[in-house]
């Protein structure tokens, strides 16, 4: 297990160091003080850092939801938390509001409120409809997702052309807005979410075997659940407010990690964090490289890979 962790750390460092050189054009840094240097430091380095942070946050969010809901298809994206957050931000953009509280931008706070509301909604919807570990949870998530997506479209419909284009691009999930400022906006959200999850990593194992059993082993189930919901909402808010909803990272990465590294969350938390970061860095590098002059929203790439993947897990589960 230690060996796997070291390999992943090395891969993460190599990705972070290597990816900024790659893209639509290869930067060889022959002219570090000229245009090469500018593009490298001002555009590509922040973008790679942002991709890593977002990937790590999205993957960990998926891991936590899968353990808490005891369902390998549960992620903030499939359960409608991302779309709740997205709607909230779309509303924010449309009203053209801008203020900040204690240095935290209003758009991030809007995303957080949207994420928290949808977490509460989907949790209670599923509990009301007949249990967390059942299909009613996913159904509730899908319904919530559609509901919030429709609301987002409604906001877009009434928006003026300029902000509509902005919203369209943004709801596809893109890292195009990346600069150091964006990285610093996402960092506190993702970092505090990760910190909370690391604190509760042992409880994730116990929650994944059932609430009643976890409680009888000594876990303060309600409190832990609340903290973990909050942690995931924080991470989603950070990611969504800057990049829009990027799908399927939260389903694929934890799944691969469980396949490769086992099921104990004490270790999985670190593996998922690293692999999530690495995965999105390379998806985004691909997104930057395939088109000339503009970049493809990375959400399109993760969805193109993730959609079929989701289907495969679904079919395999249906057969069992």
């Amino acid at each position: 297990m230690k060996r796997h962790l070291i390999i992943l750390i090395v891969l993460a460092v190599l990705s972070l160091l290597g990816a900024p050189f790659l893209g639509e054009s290869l930067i060889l840094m022959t002219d570090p003080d000229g245009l090469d240097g500018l593009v490298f430091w001002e555009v590509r380095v922040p973008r790679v850092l942002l991709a890593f942070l977002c990937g790590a946050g999205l993957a960990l969010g998926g891991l936590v939801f899968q353990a808490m809901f005891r369902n390998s298809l549960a992620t903030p994206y499939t359960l409608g938390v991302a779309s709740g957050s997205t709607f909230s931000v779309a509303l924010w953009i449309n009203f053209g509001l801008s203020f900040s509280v204690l240095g935290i931008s209003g758009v991030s706070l809007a995303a957080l409120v949207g994420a928290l509301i949808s977490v509460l909604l989907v949790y209670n919807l599923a509990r009301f409809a007949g249990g967390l570990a059942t299909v009613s949870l996913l159904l509730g998530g899908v319904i919530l997702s559609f509901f919030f997506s429709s609301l987002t479209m409604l906001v877009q419909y009434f928006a003026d052309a300029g902000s509509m284009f902005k919203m369209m691009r943004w709801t596809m999930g893109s890292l195009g807005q990346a600069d150091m400022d964006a990285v610093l906006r996402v960092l506190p959200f993702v970092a505090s979410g990760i910190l909370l999850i690391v604190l509760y990593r042992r409880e994730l194992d116990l929650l994944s075997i059932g609430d009643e059993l976890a409680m009888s082993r000594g876990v303060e189930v309600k409190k832990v659940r609340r903290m973990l919901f909050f942690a995931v909402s924080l991470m989603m808010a950070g990611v969504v407010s800057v990049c829009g909803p990027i799908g399927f990272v939260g389903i694929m990465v934890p799944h691969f990690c469980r396949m490769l590294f086992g099921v104990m969350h004490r270790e999985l938390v670190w593996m998922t964090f690293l692999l999530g970061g690495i995965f999105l860095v390379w998806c985004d590098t691909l997104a930057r490289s395939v088109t000339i002059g503009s970049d493809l929203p990375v959400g399109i790439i993760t969805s193109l890979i993730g959609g079929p993947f989701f289907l495969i897990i679904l079919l395999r589960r249906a057969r069992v």
Partner: protein
Amino acid sequence: MCPRLSGLRTAKKGEPMSDHSILLDCRGVCVDVRGKPLLSDVSFSLRQGEHKVIIGPNGAGKTTLLRAILGSQPMARGSIMLGGRELSSLRQAEVAKLISYVPQLLAAEIPYSVREFVAMGRYAYNGDPRDAAVESALVAVGLASFADRVVATLSGGERQRVCIAAALAQQAPILLLDEPLVHLDPSQRMEVQRALRELSEEVTVVVVTHDLDWAKMDFPSLVSLKAGSVDFDGTTDHFYGGSGVSRLFGEAVGAKYSSL
């Protein structure tokens, strides 16, 4: 609604402390869910080393009582003393050190290895899978050689023993089991019954079951519940000797057990 227990708590105050052999003391436990009483005025106690069975027809409140004892079901009135302390004043980890729980049948899809799963019983102690308590719990249920198997690949009887091992690893003086034989085939039932019988004398065991034969065979004391109230609390011999069974399950079942 539940009858008021005026003065009962003050009158009994301190009493459980005086008798150190009483590990669990339920006094006038009432549970209402959406205005409907599920348990009314349930009282019974449990002494160190006692093996007690709780029986009753479906809907009598057996599971509700278990959940109240575990602290997952809020009570409307009454008190539950665990090791001389009020249950509601204990943190969940403190409860876990006093009472451990084996659910009906473990969900089939547990991906953890037997050792990892049993080690989760050490949560309240911050223990890890290499803990000595994990090893001795596995030995106690005869699963030492299964430590690295994945729980999901085991048979129902083996899974139930894994669950008992996890509860034993908790090293709590009281072991609580909810219908541990349900869904098991006859040989798996015997395997679990044997594992429970071979537990050390120090472990105090409470089992909820529908199995009247097993209750008669393995448990010296018995509590029966009927419509949310205690119908009988005493020795098993006395219960089967009298009209206990027919009061709960009707004359036909009663006749079968009185002729045995």
